[in-house]
């Protein structure tokens, strides 16, 4: 009798243990323990993208301080501490945030921290202008609307894989965010529709705006920096000025948050008018930063195009 009552009890315990095994196995991950994912981001646009995708279902953590310039950033001890406590990190991965991999390595997370390459499925384009005949990948996919939407979709898809319980929400939010970005773009497209874009030629100090120009069918004739973040030599600058004159360029786009040192001498030598576009860096991290900065960029672009329109003759 005693044996008979003990057997079902032992079976029940074994059964309960078997049922608990998956829970025990998943106990280490943030989502399985009921905690929201802690998602690290490297650049300002990715903060906006991820914040809009996850809403209140996860925590977004910027890996570096908001005022830092990603082009020449040197990792700090606080960055390493932050990296130690992340569940996943979203990176550009093709030229703006190489320092992130140093931080992850220093935090001892190389093997344990999932990395989402936001550009994994974005069709990259070369830097416009003369790059000595070499086609160099342009990493500024986040200064755009179409490539930005593609990155939002990629991030949402990968986050859904890591956090299946919230996958549907992430996808729904990503689609809603993409719709908002397209509405923003459509507002300016309507304004551009009345303008003649065929003769528009521009130069840029920094090769940051090719994806944006591509969306509007605009053509960049020359890029002042010979390589990303590299100042031109006197000879290269002279060649660029010559190219600007040859191509009848009337507009030069400089970088809003960086020095205008490069733009001023070119303005003086060629008579181009300088407009400043945002690289979407240097402000406080926020969910709406990308939309605000892109609206400003599109407004600047519209003003530049309007500047190049032939003057209407007055009756």
């Amino acid at each position, binding site marked *: 009798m005693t044996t008979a009552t003990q057997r079902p009890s032992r079976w029940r315990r074994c059964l309960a243990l078997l049922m608990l095994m998956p829970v025990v196995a998943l106990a280490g991950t943030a989502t399985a323990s009921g905690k929201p994912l802690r998602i690290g981001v490297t650049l300002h646009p990715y903060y906006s993208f991820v914040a809009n995708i996850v809403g209140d279902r996860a925590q977004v953590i910027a890996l570096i301080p908001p005022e830092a310039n990603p082009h020449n950033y040197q990792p700090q001890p606080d960055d390493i501490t932050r990296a130690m406590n992340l569940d996943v990190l979203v990176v550009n991965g*093709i030229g703006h945030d190489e320092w992130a991999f140093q931080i992850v390595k220093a935090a001892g997370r190389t093997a344990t921290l999932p990395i989402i390459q936001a*550009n994994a*499925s*974005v069709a990259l384009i070369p830097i416009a202008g003369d790059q000595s005949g070499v086609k160099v*990948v342009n990493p500024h996919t986040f200064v755009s609307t179409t490539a930005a939407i593609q990155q939002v979709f990629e991030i949402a898809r990968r986050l859904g894989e890591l956090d299946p319980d919230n996958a549907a929400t992430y996808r729904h939010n990503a*689609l809603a965010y993409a719709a908002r970005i397209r*509405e923003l*773009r459509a507002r300016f497209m309507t304004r551009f*529709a009345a303008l003649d874009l065929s003769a528009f030629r521009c130069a840029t100090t920094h090769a940051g705006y090719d994806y944006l120009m591509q969306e509007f*069918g605009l053509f960049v004739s020359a890029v002042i920096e010979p390589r990303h973040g590299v100042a031109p030599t006197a000879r290269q600058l002279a060649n660029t000025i010559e190219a600007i004159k040859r191509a009848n360029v009337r507009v030069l786009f400089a970088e809003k948050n960086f020095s205008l040192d490069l733009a001023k001498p070119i303005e003086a030598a060629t008579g181009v008018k300088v407009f400043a576009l945002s690289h979407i860096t240097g402000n406080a991290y926020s969910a709406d930063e990308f939309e605000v900065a892109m609206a400003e960029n599109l407004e600047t672009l519209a003003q530049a195009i309007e500047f190049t329109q032939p003057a209407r003759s007055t009756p």
Partner: protein
Amino acid sequence: MASLSDAITVVRPRSGRWESLALLLATLAVIAGVAGYVALRPQKAGPPIPLSWQVRSFDGLGAVDQAIHSALLPAGEEIIWFNNDTGGWITLEHAQKLLLPPFYRDGFWKTHGEVQWQLILPGTHQAHGLSGDAHAPADPSANQVSQATQGQGATVYYGAGGRATGQSAYLLVIGHAHAGVMWANQATIWVHPDPNAPYPGIVKPESLVGDGWRQVIPYDGTSEVERVKGTQP
């Protein structure tokens, strides 16, 4: 009086010039070593090399085609998500409401050739109508229908009639798992050098290639990371 030649004593190296020979051999060895390294050094992964029927988006397309291809990629993703959620497809009318490029008739559409798009739904293809793929056999051994209609379960967005200089015609082909296609639920993009190329009717890859269509290979972030850092785990 002794001659000048008598006064000159030639001193021969004791080693018999072997140092010169050794130096020559060492130089040759260094040159051979450097040449061997240059010839045999491990190559970094480059951009994917297109086959004869493919074209790379990065450096094989003109500016207009490149922009339309860039717009088709996220559009394809959104169309697939829409289909997963609703079972339906984003019609061209719906695309206008969604402001979805490259179908939405805005400034982008205007500056990129005013391409005329058509949506060809599964079951309306020439061969697809005969396949009865809605009842595709579950038994793999009896999968002849899937084989014969491979690609014909696809939904296709066909764009032609573009007016921009050097522009192509376009196909966004979205495979469908039920028809047994190899790229189920994924989008592939094809271009034809004739902007007025007729709709191919059969969207199997071999038929498209035969009709002069070329598949566009995107050079994406994954490819770039592999090029720079090698294959990622």
